[in-house]
């Protein structure tokens, strides 16, 4: 049997116990199992792939250090996801300190019509999110994808609930504009063909 197959056969409990003992093979198996999923999360919060990998690396260090305290009250993947999000937020805090989020009132931004994302590739959606300003990107991730409400986001980022709402509104508008542009571009290309 191949090494990868054996690693995939390991139970969650075996992985946790192995990592708690500091077994490097078990740590690698855990990393192999969850790193791809966590990479998506890190990419959503980061501006670049390199920055995302830094967050991923720091996040797994924290996971291995704290896995002894994991009490199995939630799924392991949920616990690791929470650590990754917190690590990503910590890495963004300095930026938020330098460029604090403020209420945004952009009259020029109109609520565009509803757009389906099914026609977009994951990498396209990812690059759209990464192009958002730092504050907008974090609030958008937390609200739209992680499912936090604005009060919780305000508490997490130490901003007001209104600021969170306005940042999200701006992110949403910017994304819809990008989506529309992309769709228009595709329509023109199809017409030419």
């Amino acid at each position, binding site marked *: 049997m191949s090494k990868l197959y054996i690693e995939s056969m390991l139970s969650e409990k075996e992985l946790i116990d192995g990592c708690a003992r*500091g077994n*490097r093979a078990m*740590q*690698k198996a855990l*990393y192999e199992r969850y*790193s*791809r*999923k966590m*990479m*998506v999360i890190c*990419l*959503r919060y980061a501006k670049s*792939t390199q920055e*995302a*990998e830094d967050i*991923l*690396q720091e996040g*797994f*260090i924290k996971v*291995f250090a704290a896995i002894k305290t994991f009490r199995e009250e939630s799924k392991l993947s949920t616990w690791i996801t929470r650590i990754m999000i917190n690590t990503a937020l910590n890495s963004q805090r300095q930026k938020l300190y330098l460029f604090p989020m403020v209420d945004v009132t952009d009259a020029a931004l109109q*609520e565009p019509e*509803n*757009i*389906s*994302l099914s026609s*977009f590739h*994951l990498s396209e*959606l990812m690059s759209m999110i990464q192009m958002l300003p730092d504050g907008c990107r974090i609030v958008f991730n937390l*609200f*739209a*994808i992680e*499912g936090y409400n604005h009060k919780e986001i305000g508490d997490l980022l130490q901003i007001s609930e209104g600021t969170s709402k306005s940042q999200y509104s701006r992110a*949403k508008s910017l994304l*819809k504009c990008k989506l529309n542009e992309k769709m228009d571009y595709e329509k023109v290309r199809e017409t030419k063909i």
Partner: protein
Amino acid sequence: MKKSEKLKFEEEWRSAFEDTEMNPSEAAWNNLDLQLSHQENGYMRRRVILYQRLIVASLVTALLLGGGSYWYWQSRSSLDSSVSELSELKTKNAESSDQTTSPYLPSEPLSTTLSTGSGKVVIPDEAGHSKTNTATVDGKYQVTQKFHSQGFHLLSETTHDLRQSNEAFLNNRKNWAAKGSNGYLTQWTEEELKLSNKPYQEVSSPTRLPRSAFVKVETKKSRKESNDWIASIGGSAGGYSSGSSSISSTPAKTAFDQLGAVNADPVSQRESGGNSYSVGMTFGKKVAPRWMLMSGFNYMNQSIGYNSNVAVVDAGNQPKAFLADLRAESANVSTTIPYTLNSVNEFFSVPLQAGYLIINRKFGFQLNAGVAADFFVKNTLADNSGQFSSYSEGPGSSSSYRSLNWAGLFGTEFNYKVNKHYRVSVVPGLRYSFTSVLKQSTGSTLNPFVWDIGFRFGYIF
């Protein structure tokens, strides 16, 4: 836009990223692997350092305990020999002054008392390592003897009236055995009976209680905290050795009949072991990441026993306990029947010590070394039997004691940081006086060596 449409937007994004995966680069795991290795190495290095420090701490503790035990047993053997010497001296004095009526000897021979009484001998434990034989006479006197299983004489003790008449007791015991009044007596062999050829003495092993070397130190300090200062109070107690037992002899000035004066040389024989304790306050300052400088002030009390046949009579014609060691130019010194007295030296001590923090965590361990200036306060000589009044002497040019003595200090400190500001410590320590407490003009030397265990309660600023 309707609310449902708004929610649909978020739902679209959420489902777009649901169960999605992207491969990180190979370098990501390599970097992570490298970082984990660095962490493990650091952890192992810290553990090795911790173990090294624990080994050093164990060695120092073992040395301290070994040293203390050595001094303890040495003082025990010295005490045994001093008791024998005192007994011989006492017998000699009694023989040389057989015409003198001594108030300390029984008024009638003990053999008479015993022969008229009803004897009872009990051997409670024959199977054990020792036997205890008790003879009760008229329900008034009781004689107890303890023998080792191999016949070695360990301890014999009697009531005061029977103390100097072991030979009489043995004779009587033989008589009882011959009369068959008690079957147990037949179990005593001649060899066992011969073993008790020393006068019965009530021997009490020296009580060893501690002293102190007041050092207060810091244990665990957070790197970012500014808790460089610590103040502590505490005390310590332990054993005190004069180095070796000494016998001093000086010519007597005058003989006084009322003291029961005997025709013998003045002799003061110091026991090799005594007690010491101290209380005080200590201040410490962290001068480097692992170095502490400490000082403070202590009251120190050192007591030791003497066997003396010297007494002094003051201007009020009051006889007082005295030592042949001491100078008494203007006082009248006389020899008398040997008696035991307790000599207590009191000092005000100012130590200065440096401490090295070997373990600086919640539990801490450090080594301390330094010097102390001991200012002599007072010496008191107290007769244990109460026959003579106490004699006191302070510092000064006419005193037999030096006003200032220098001592070397060495010790360890085990401490526990209770919280950010408080900590408790156990401080085993050694103290040795470089300079003799007695002046050179007395012709005697006294260099106290103290080993003790202290307890401190400290406040960290």
